[in-house]
C-alpha cells in the first residue's frame, strides 16, 4: 500500500522520448496546477485587455482615476460591480488597472532577482576558490541583513515610482537563487560533458551559458514562479507600511491598504483586493509546485 502507484509515475506515451511532451503530460496530471495556470492566464488576459482599453483612451466600465465624491463609498451594485471608494472611484476599474501594476511588480522584481542571482551563483560555482568564498560571504551578509531596511533605503534613495518598488523587491530576493545555482554548478562542473567541453578548449563564457546554465534551469524556473507570488505579497506588505507603490497609482496592495481604514464603512474596499491577491498568489504557487513536480519527478513532495 506504500507502493500505491501515483498516476504521475505512469510512463508517458510510448513513442520516442520527447522531454517537453513528457513534461506537459506530467504537468497536466496535476489538476491544482492546471487550475493555477488558468487563473494566471485569466488575469493576464484581463490586465492586457484593460491596458489596451486605456491606451485607446477607452475607459470601461469607468475611468479608474475619475473621482465622483457624491458617489463615495457605495456598496457593490449593478453600476459599480465592486462598489466605490472614499473618493467615489469605481473599485472594479481600479482593480483591473491595478492588476497590471501588481503583475508587473511581480515579474520585473523576479526578473531582477533572477539576473543577479544567476550571475552571482554561476560565477561563484564556476570559478570556486576565493571568488566563491568572497561571493558567498557577500550572500551571507545580504541574507543576514534584515530585508526591511534594505527595502526602505532603496525605496527612499530612488524617487518613489513603482519601478523602484520592483527594483527593491528584486534586490532583496536574489540570494536564494544565487545559492542553488552555485550548488547546481558545483555539481555539474565535474560532469563529463562539461569536462569535455573544457578539454575542447571552450571559453568560460561558452561553458557557462551553453553547457552549464541550461542544465540547471529547472529549479531556477520553479523558484522564479514562486518568486512572483512572493513579490506580489511583498508589495502588499510594503504598501501597508507605507513604502509600496504610492497612490494615486492603483495596485492591489495600496487599494487594500487604503481600504482597510474604511473597513467598518465599506468592507468591499478590503475584501475584494485581498481576494484578488489571494487568488493570484495562490495560482502562482500552485503553478510553481506543478512545474516543480513535472520538471523533476524526483523532487515531488
Amino acid at each position: 500500500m506504500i507502493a500505491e502507484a501515483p498516476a504521475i509515475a505512469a510512463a508517458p506515451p510510448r513513442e520516442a522520448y520527447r522531454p517537453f511532451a513528457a513534461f506537459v503530460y506530467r504537468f497536466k496530471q496535476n489538476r491544482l496546477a492546471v487550475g493555477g495556470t488558468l487563473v494566471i492566464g485569466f488575469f493576464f488576459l484581463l490586465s492586457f485587455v484593460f491596458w489596451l482599453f486605456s491606451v485607446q483612451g477607452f475607459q470601461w466600465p469607468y475611468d479608474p482615476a475619475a473621482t465622483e465624491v457624491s458617489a463615495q463609498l457605495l456598496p457593490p451594485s449593478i453600476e459599480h460591480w465592486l462598489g466605490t471608494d472614499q473618493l467615489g472611484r469605481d473599485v472594479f476599474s481600479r482593480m483591473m488597472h491595478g492588476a497590471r501594476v501588481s503583475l508587473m511588480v511581480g515579474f520585473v522584481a523576479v526578473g531582477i532577482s533572477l539576473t543577479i542571482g544567476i550571475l552571482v551563483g554561476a560565477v561563484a560555482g564556476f570559478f570556486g576558490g576565493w571568488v566563491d568564498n568572497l561571493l558567498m560571504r557577500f550572500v551571507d551578509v545580504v541574507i543576514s541583513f534584515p530585508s526591511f531596511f534594505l527595502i526602505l533605503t532603496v525605496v527612499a534613495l530612488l524617487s518613489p515610482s513603482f519601478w523602484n518598488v520592483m527594483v527593491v523587491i528584486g534586490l532583496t530576493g536574489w540570494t536564494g537563487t544565487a545559492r542553488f545555482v552555485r550548488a547546481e554548478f558545483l555539481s555539474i562542473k565535474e560532469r563529463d560533458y562539461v569536462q569535455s567541453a573544457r578539454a575542447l578548449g571552450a571559453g568560460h563564457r561558452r561553458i557557462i551559458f551553453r553547457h552549464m546554465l541550461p542544465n540547471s534551469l529547472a529549479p531556477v524556473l520553479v523558484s522564479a514562479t514562486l518568486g512572483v507570488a512572493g513579490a506580489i505579497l511583498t508589495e502588499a506588505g510594503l504598501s501597508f507600511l507605507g513604502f509600496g507603490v504610492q497612490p494615486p497609482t492603483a495596485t492591489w496592495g495600496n487599494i487594500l491598504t487604503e481600504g482597510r481604514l474604511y473597513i467598518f464603512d465599506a468592507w468591499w474596499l478590503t475584501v475584494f483586493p485581498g481576494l484578488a491577491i489571494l487568488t493570484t498568489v495562490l495560482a502562482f504557487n500552485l503553478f510553481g509546485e506543478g512545474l516543480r513536480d513535472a520538471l523533476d519527478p524526483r523532487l515531488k513532495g
Partner: protein
Amino acid sequence: MFQFILRRLIQSIPVLFGISVLSFAMIHLAPGSPLGVLMDPKVPPKVVEQWERNFNLDKSLPAQYGLWLKNLATGDLRSFKDGRPVIDKIMERLPATLILNLVATIIIFSIAIPLGVYSATHRYSLADHTTTLFAFVGISMPSFWLAYMLILLIVQGLGLPILGSRTFGLTEVGAVAGLADRLWHLFLPSVILSVAGIASLSRYMRGSMLEVTRQDYITTALAKGLPDDEVRYRHGLRNALMPIITIFGFLIPTLIGGSVIIESIFAWPGIGRLAYQSVLSRDYPTIMTINMITAILVILGNLMADVLYGVVDPRVKVK
C-alpha cells in the same frame, strides 16, 4: 563539534562587520534625517543645527561609524528619540516578541506535523487534497488582510477586547483570570502569525514523511508483518521528523521579521514595532542595534540548523 561551532562563530565575525558597515552606510545615505520630523513653526533651523551637533550628525560618516563602534563597546549607545540606552529599549520589548513567537511556534509545530503526517498517510485522499489547497491558501494571503478579515468576521460580532497584551483596567481579578486574559489576547496575533508557517511546514512534513515511507527499512518492517501504525509512527515518523527539526533554526528570525505588521495591528508591544518606528523617525542607533541583533539571530539560527542536523542524523558529518 565544539571546534565546528567555534570555527563558524569566528567566520561570522567578518560577516557581522560587513553587515554593520553596509547597514550603517545605507541608513545614513537614506534620505530624511532624525530631525526631519520636526516641522513646527516654533522650531527655527538654528535649533535643528544645534541638535545635529549634539547628535554628532555634523561629523563625517567614517567618524560617525567610529563613534558608533565606540559607543557599542562602552555600552553607551543611546536612542536619538528619548536618550535612553538602546539596549534597555530592546530588552523591555523583547519578552513580548518572544512570547508571541514562542506561542506561534508551538501552534505551528503542533498543527503542521499532524497535518503533514495525515496528508502523507492518506495520500491523494480528499483530506490530502483539501489540506494541500488550504496550505497553499495559507501562504498566499497578505497577513494584514487575514487579520482584518478575522476582525471583521469574528471579533466585531463578539465584542471582546483583543488589542494589546491584556485587558486594561482589569486590576481586581485573580491571577488565574489574569492569565486567561493574557492568553486570550495572544490568540489572534499568534494564530495569524502562524498561518504561513503551518502551511509551509505541513507541506515539508508531508514530503518528508513520503520520502521516509519509500525507504527500504520501512518496506522491510512492513514485510516482516509489523502493524502499519507501528511502522509508520515508531520508525517512519522519527526519521521524517529529523529534517523538520532543522527548520526550527530558521524559523525564529523569520517570525521576528514577520511580526512587524501583526504587532502594529494588534497593538502588541514588541521589537517589530520598535524597528518600524525607529526607521520612520530615523533613530539611527536603535535601527543599527536591531539590525545587528537580527543578523546575529539569523547567523545563530543557521548555525543551530546545521548543528541540529548533525545531531539528528549522525550520517551527516559536521565539518
